[in-house]
């Protein structure tokens, strides 16, 4: 059952052709926002352009029937872009938690302008919806709950998600402080040993188990100790 896609597509900024600003199209509706009495949603040529404040509406004398001309478009461009990027960000975050970097990248993919993206992510950070430290903490907890992993792997995954090194170190120190890394490596080594046939030479088995543990980010001293204990 798919369900999010219709809304996600609707919010893709790049899918819309720009409206003509030669006065040939008009403001067709100004609908009050139920959740924000200080704003109205602006429709031009029956297309939803986004929300503007009542102050903007008054300042620019916007009413139903006002011509959509270049000066008006330029004046509202930034406000509309910021609002639209913000709402798109909310919807992206409803579907999946993201770091600030991931959210920015997704908004860029959808065609939102860099300034609007920057404004939206800063606003969401201010509102404490975007929080890279919390995101990293939850990410590491989930990764470790799923499968044992070493510091190197977790650190790499967090870097890929644009988390700053200071946060990475803090979060990994916390997460791995009370964790027995050797026990994790041992568990993974035992599982790997079971899955590799006895018919292979010990050297082959050791090489494969080493590769598997290395890919999970364990350091070589830990890997060697864990493999030595297997007595292959």
């Amino acid at each position, binding site marked *: *059952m*798919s*369900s*999010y896609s219709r*809304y996600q597509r609707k919010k893709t900024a790049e899918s819309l052709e720009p409206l003509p600003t030669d006065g040939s199209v008009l403001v067709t509706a100004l609908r009050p*926002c*139920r*959740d924000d009495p200080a704003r109205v949603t602006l429709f031009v040529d029956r297309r939803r352009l986004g929300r503007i404040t009542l102050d903007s509406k008054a300042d620019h004398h916007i009413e139903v029937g006002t011509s959509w001309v270049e000066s008006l478009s330029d004046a509202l461009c930034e406000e509309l872009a910021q609002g639209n990027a913000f*709402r798109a960000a*909310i*919807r992206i*975050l*409803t*579907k*999946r*938690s993201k770091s600030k970097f991931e959210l920015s990248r997704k908004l860029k993919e959808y065609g939102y302008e860099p300034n609007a993206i920057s404004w939206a992510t800063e606003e969401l950070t201010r*509102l*404490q*919806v975007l929080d890279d430290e919390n995101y990293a903490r*939850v990410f590491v907890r989930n990764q470790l709950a799923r499968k044992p992993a070493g510091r190197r792997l977790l650190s790499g995954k967090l870097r890929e998600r644009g988390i700053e090194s200071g946060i990475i170190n803090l979060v990994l120190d916390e997460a791995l402080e009370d964790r027995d890394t050797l026990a994790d490596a041992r568990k993974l080594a035992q599982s790997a040993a079971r899955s590799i046939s006895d018919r292979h030479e010990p050297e082959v088995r050791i090489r494969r188990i080493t590769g598997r543990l290395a890919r999970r980010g364990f350091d070589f001293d830990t890997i060697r100790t864990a493999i030595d204990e297997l007595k292959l």
Partner: protein
Amino acid sequence: MPSIAQLEKLLTIEPDDPFVHYGLGQELSKAGEHDRAIECYTKVIELDPNYCYAYYFKGQTLELIGKPAEAKTIITQGIAAAKQVQDAKAISELSTLLQSVI
């Protein structure tokens, strides 16, 4: 997926966004909080009567908590909404769900 707490926070910022209510409904369902999930799906339908999958999951959840008659009513309304927006996939899936409700 975002946590229930995170989604609730998003709702404080966008209280009338059906998409966020829907997301919260999904997470509440997973957590077994069926009554609250139904409230979320109801809100989605109130905000956007064409959001067909809100009918689907509301119906499914109603059946799960032992209210098949209410489930059938809401699924039937969902089929009507899906026909309205000509969403063939939703019509098919809601119809299958309706047949499975005992």
